[in-house]
């Protein structure tokens, strides 16, 4: 009886060992062949530079779920927040460019170096595509006496350094836009940074600040509810989510720079992998799920492929490298 059990155990362990070895051989062979022939063959990680819940996270998660359908492998979002995204950018550019690790690239990839937060930028990245843009909007309380953008500029000119504009944080894209407004209209405001656009908007609702510069999608719900009034979109064209609000270009001004969402990989991606990824991103961009997200969150759905995205990002990087030091110096000189 004991002997029999011993035999059984031996036989069993041998069978398990052989099966395991066979499995290993098949797996390694399979992996090898699929890796050279077809990408992707294993899950892809997508690094998001914010905490879960924000716009970047929503864009990444919707894109990831659509990419899964296109690529046939899981695409897993991983949040690595910190330092306006620099923690995530630094992490991604140091990984192997094998196409199994991608990053969500917001406007901050063109800003963090100029802001002095970290030595990382688009030159360290293999840019894949841009998928959406968010326009800056200037909003005031609905009980405010300012009915038009030009009326606000007039008031600001008569009382320089008096009116207060809230923003989502010093050095944020909306703060930069408020500084661009000052520069273009030759006005002076007091800038009050809050911890995110939601806090700034709450302060405007309580009339602790006179105006707020924030994303069109962030302001739109309050404009539609009638508690805020949007005066202008800092862009050449109107925002689809606020069709009645004039663009500053119509009013005779030319300033403003949008926030955007794109995707990138560590530098040195093999060409076949890049084209496979860009194709999948294009399909995911066209999906109803992503288009609906853009409508709901007040973003403009815009697709730029790797080459156009590179040209766009290089232009943005140059712009921020000259604009950020100039605007910040000006702001300090005024104070």
């Amino acid at each position, binding site marked *: 009886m004991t002997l029999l059990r011993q035999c059984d155990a031996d036989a069993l362990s041998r069978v398990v060992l052989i099966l395991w070895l066979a499995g290993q051989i098949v797996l390694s062979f399979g992996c090898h062949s699929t890796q050279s022939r077809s990408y992707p063959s294993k899950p892809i990680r997508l690094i998001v530079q914010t*905490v*879960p*819940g*924000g716009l970047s996270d*929503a864009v990444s998660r919707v894109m990831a779920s659509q990419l899964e359908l296109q690529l046939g492998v899981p695409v897993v979002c*991983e*949040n*690595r*927040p*910190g*330092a*306006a995204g*620099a*923690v995530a950018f*630094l992490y991604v550019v140091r990984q192997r460019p094998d196409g199994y690790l991608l990053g969500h690239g917001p406007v901050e990839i063109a800003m963090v170096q100029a*802001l002095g*937060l*970290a030595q990382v930028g688009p030159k360290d990245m293999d840019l894949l595509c841009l998928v959406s843009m968010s326009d800056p909007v200037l909003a005031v309380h609905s009980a405010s006496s300012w009915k038009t953008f030009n009326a606000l500029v007039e008031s600001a000119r008569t009382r320089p350094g008096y009116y*207060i504009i809230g923003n989502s*944080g*010093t*050095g944020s894209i909306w703060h930069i836009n408020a500084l661009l407004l000052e520069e273009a209209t030759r006005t002076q405001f*007091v*800038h*009050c*940074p*809050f*911890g995110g656009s*939601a*806090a700034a908007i*709450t*302060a405007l*609702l*309580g009339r*602790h*600040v006179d105006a707020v510069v924030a994303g069109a999608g962030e302001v739109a*719900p309050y404009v539609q*509810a009638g508690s805020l009034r949007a005066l202008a979109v800092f862009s050449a064209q109107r925002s689809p989510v606020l069709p009645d609000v004039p663009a500053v270009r119509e009013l005779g001004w030319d300033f403003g720079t949008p926030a955007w969402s794109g995707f990138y990989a560590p530098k040195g991606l093999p060409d076949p992998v890049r084209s496979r990824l860009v194709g999948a991103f294009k399909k995911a961009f066209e999906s109803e799920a992503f288009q609906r997200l853009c409508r709901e969150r007040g973003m403009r759905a815009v697709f730029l492929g790797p080459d156009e995205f590179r040209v766009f990002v290089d232009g943005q990087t140059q712009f921020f490298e000259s604009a950020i030091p100039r605007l910040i110096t000006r702001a300090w000189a005024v104070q």
Partner: protein
Amino acid sequence: MSSELTAALTQLLEARIVGFLTAGVGLGMLFGALPGLTATMGIALLVPLTFWLPTDQGLAMLLGIYCGAIPAGGIPAILLNVPGTPASIAATWDGYALSQKGRADLALKINVFASLFGQLLGVLFLALAAFPIASLALRMGPAEYFGLGVFGLSLMAGVSGKRVWEGVLAGTLGLALATVGLDPLTAYPRFTFGLPELLDGVAFIPVMIGLFGLGEVLAAISAGVTPFGATTHRSADAPALQRCVGPVLGSSLLGSLIGVFVGAVPAAGGDIAAIIAWDQSRRLSPNREEFGQGSTRGLAAACAAANAVIGGAMTTMMTLGIPGDAPSAVLIGALLIHGVQPGPLMFRDHRTLVWTIVLLLALAALVTASVGLLGSAPLARLARVPAPYLWMAVVLLSITGAYALNNSLTDVWLMFIAGLAGFVLRKLEVPLGPLVLGLILGPMIESNLRRALVLSRGDWSTIFARPLVLVFLVAAAAALFGPVAALRRTQHNRPAALSR
């Protein structure tokens, strides 16, 4: 209002919600009953799991943990003299004394009933008073938040046990740590040593996990403390229960009111509420000398206050968007993940969700009480797992908990450093609560004071001329000096378990 209430009620009738709520309560009770695992930790660890759940189901689970953990924390406090969560520190004074007299069953039942009373009263407050507070909340600007922050800080500094000066020292250390990171107004890096990971400051959750989880284990190992049980159980008979109904109800009401108030104060949590309630109940009691010797009143006041904090903290969180205590700080993060920004606008944009939370809290309180009555004895046995296994689990959970928050190894190192610091501070008998409080409230006080100064164009006088700011600052002064005086008076009456 009624249509939203109906909508919320209909949602709750779904089996999945009740299922996730019960699962949350069970997990919460486990976390609460195991010393070193806190309600905050339980919520923080479970938040990532709820990413894949719809908002209401995820919330059901997280609120279940919150409501389950606090009453369960009283179980090891009563049976082993080891508080399961910080909120159950005050429950050890009379609870352990009762169980040493062989009245463990009675003590556990008082814990269940007082906890249920506290939670339900807190929820009632949330349901009835949150709306007026929400409409007032929009009028609160940076200056008022600054005042609130100072008030929160003063309460904690006052209630550092016997070691008031060490508490002030720890609080200052926390405030100093809070200066690390980008300057909130100029975005200039402070004390970051060129590390991008430090630009957002010292993350308080890894620090808290290190201080209370790893630090506690290191201290226990060095002291050679072994959790022990084997208390003789004598079941509470009907006459014994009847005799203490009156005193328990009175103390529960007093404790609950204090708990709701302290809970509504940002970042002053169940531990302080229970201590203050225990003290107030002692002062009002006809037989003071019973307190600390196994008073049913003292135990009821402590348990009710620790649990009423939930309703108070949720009110602050949902109306003002700021945490009323540590677990609700983690809950804010969880709500953000589900696309809900806690704050005044929640009552306008997510009214059904507000009612869902109210009803979930009430349901969780009832489920917790039923589970507590049925299963307090088996759960109590869990707290008697051999110490090395328990320590091992706490260390592993500390590491995974610190990493999981931001997928950051930096946070794990931060947790280890905080664990070592917690061990050293424990050895020096420095209270740890004020340190975490300084770390949490420091940025709130600093950024809001400076924002208020931007808005007043650098004029200090207009800040202090605001009536609400004055109220908070006066209350802060009272809170700072009141408990100090009270603690001095009561020092002689307390058992040694108090020093923490």
